[in-house]
Every structure is written in structure tokens, then in C-alpha cells.
């Protein structure tokens, strides 16, 4: 039982097996609500890692408002992330996304019992694995030079355009620009896909994510690949990183215009989706 005051809710960070939970008696860890500590809540072999929170912070309407406040969001999201990492160090965890709230312990129990098998299966699946994020940035200018050099069609088209009347030239040039843009895009994608295919072989699972816009990254080069990979901890991670390092070196020495950025190890945030039946995304399904 979780003793809740009238205006309290339950924030859930993650699930672990009861067996693992029993090896640890959580020392005093401050929760997402600084007035409360992190606790365990167990039902049918599963243990939820929880914290009691105030509805003024996390009730639906209030929560929606609060996440718009960057400072509020930043503090809580960091806390969620840091606590999750410390759990990930100690246990095999099924991490939940930020802001997963239950109204009372009955609801939480029901959910834990209903999805019991699936959740235990995921805990088995992610055991001994970690998530790595790879972002690839491409320098469009370098790619553009290469495309202009290698592609004979472009020179031919330019030649054709110079024969046209002035009015027609304008539109023909626009069309050619678009063609060149597409060729660059194709080149970049081909590169990224080739690297991805190699990394997928070292991974248990992968999920392609949306690229961030330049306004978000604040970089000159363009984010052209953003993907998370579920990799076995240890040797496989070393191999995984080595592959990326080699690509970076190759790109540097050949001036290919690629920049690789990895972050990790993350808890398996993207591979703990126990309600989705379409979680196999190895084929690079975009969201």
C-alpha cells in the first residue's frame, strides 16, 4: 500500500524485478518531489520505483502548464534522467518516459498485473544491454562539391540551359538547383544508411528518430541521422564505438564532411515499450 494524501499522486520512474529490488533497500534518495523519497512498490514479482508527488505539480492540467515552463521542466527532466541512470547502474530496468503518473496504488497495481508478462519479458530482453544514440552531421557544401564533380548529368544540363532563351533559363536553372539538392540529399542518405546497416549488425534493436532542425542544433552542418541502438554492454559496445570512430577517421582523412556524435550509455528508453506491438524498427522506420 502507498499512503497518499488527498492531493497526492504517484510518479513512476521505472520497473525492475522484485528479485532485484529485494537486494537493495533504497537509501534516502530524494524524489522528483523534493519533499518525498523514492520508494519501491511491489506486485506479482515486479517492483515499481516511485515517488509521491503533489497534484498541484502533476495533475494533468497543471502538468501541461508546468512543462511549458522551461526551468520547471529542466529541473524535473534532469532529475528523472539522473535517477534513471543511477537505477540503471544497479538494476536491470524498464525505464518509463518522463511524467508517467498514476492516480492511486490500485491503478498502478492493476496495470502492473495486466502487463506483468510483457514487462517481465522486456526486463529479460534489455538485461545486460544499453542504449546508444548516434547523430551524424553532414557538411552540405562538401557533399555539394562532390556531387557537382561526379555527376556528368549536371554539366550536360548546364550546357543545355545555356542554349535556352533568357526566360526559359530561369526556370530551367531552378529545376536544376532542385535536382542538385536532391542528389546531395541522396548522397548523404546513402552514406548514413551504409553506416547504419553496419551498426545494426552489432545491435539487438534500433530505432530511427527525427533529425533536429538547424535552429535546434545551432550548427552549420546539418543533422542527417539520429538513431538509437540497443547494444550489449561490454565488447559489443566497444566494437560499436570502434566502427563509428573508424568512420570518423575515414571521413576526416578523405574530407567527406561527416561528423559523428554519440551519447550513452542510456537506459533502454526506446526499447521498453510494452504496449506497442510494432516495436521492431530495425528496418529504419521513421517516426
Amino acid at each position, binding site marked *: 500500500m502507498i499512503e497518499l494524501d488527498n492531493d497526492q499522486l504517484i510518479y513512476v520512474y521505472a520497473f525492475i524485478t522484485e528479485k532485484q529490488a529485494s537486494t537493495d533497500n533504497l537509501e534516502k534518495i530524494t524524489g522528483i518531489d523534493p519533499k518525498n523519497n523514492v520508494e519501491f512498490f511491489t506486485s506479482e514479482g515486479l517492483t515499481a520505483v516511485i515517488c509521491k508527488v503533489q497534484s498541484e505539480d502533476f495533475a*494533468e492540467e497543471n502538468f501541461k502548464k508546468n512543462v511549458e515552463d*522551461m526551468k520547471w521542466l529542466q529541473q524535473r527532466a534532469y532529475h528523472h534522467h539522473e535517477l534513471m541512470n543511477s537505477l540503471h547502474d544497479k538494476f536491470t530496468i524498464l525505464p518509463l518516459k518522463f511524467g508517467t*503518473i498514476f492516480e492511486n496504488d490500485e491503478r498502478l497495481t492493476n496495470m502492473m498485473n495486466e502487463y506483468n508478462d510483457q514487462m517481465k519479458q522486456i526486463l529479460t530482453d534489455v538485461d545486460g544491454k544499453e542504449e546508444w544514440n548516434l547523430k551524424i552531421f553532414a557538411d552540405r557544401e562538401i557533399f555539394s562539391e562532390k556531387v557537382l564533380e561526379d555527376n556528368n548529368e549536371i554539366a550536360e544540363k548546364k550546357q543545355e540551359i545555356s542554349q535556352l532563351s533568357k526566360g526559359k533559363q530561369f526556370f530551367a536553372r531552378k529545376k536544376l538547383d532542385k535536382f542538385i539538392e536532391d542528389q546531395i540529399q541522396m548522397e548523404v542518405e546513402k552514406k548514413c544508411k551504409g553506416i547504419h546497416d553496419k551498426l545494426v549488425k552489432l545491435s539487438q534493436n534500433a530505432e530511427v528518430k527525427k533529425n533536429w532542425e538547424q535552429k535546434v542544433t*545551432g550548427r552549420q552542418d546539418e543533422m542527417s541521422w539520429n538513431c538509437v541502438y540497443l547494444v550489449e554492454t561490454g565488447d559489443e559496445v566497444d566494437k560499436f564505438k570502434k566502427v563509428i570512430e573508424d568512420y570518423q577517421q575515414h571521413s576526416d582523412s578523405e574530407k567527406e564532411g561527416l561528423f559523428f556524435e*554519440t551519447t550513452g550509455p542510456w537506459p533502454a528508453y526506446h526499447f521498453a515499450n510494452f504496449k506497442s506491438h510494432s516495436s521492431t524498427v530495425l528496418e529504419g522506420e521513421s517516426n
Partner: protein
Amino acid sequence: MQTETLDNKDVSLLDILDAVLDKGVALRGDITISIADIDLVYLDLRILLTSVETLIETRQKPSVSEMEQKIHQQERGF
């Protein structure tokens, strides 16, 4: 190549949000109150945009109309 380990504070807030918010929670429907009850794609975008705003503030603040235009575009899925 740049590798950020997670105990390194340099992992950006955006990276964290991209991990902990993207596509939302798996529990949709079972929770009475949750981030899953709202349109998550929309929420994610808004949060990203908010952070963009903060990022840009230190460089060059975009005009309100620019931000609005961007938000409208995002909403329409461009």
C-alpha cells in the same frame, strides 16, 4: 567524433528530452493523468521549440512572428 558519457554534464537538455519525452509513454489509456493523454507529437514539438527559443535568446532573439510562423508550420506537420 564526439562521445558524451552520461555522467558527463555536457549531455544537453535537448538530448535528455529527446530520450525521455520522444513518442511518449507506453502506458497510454491506463493512466488517468499522464503526458500520454495529450497529443504527444504536439507537446514534444512545443517543448523543443521552447528550448530553441531559450537557445536562441543567447545568440539572437527571433521575432515573435517568426516563432509563431514556425509553430504554425510545425503544427501543420511541415
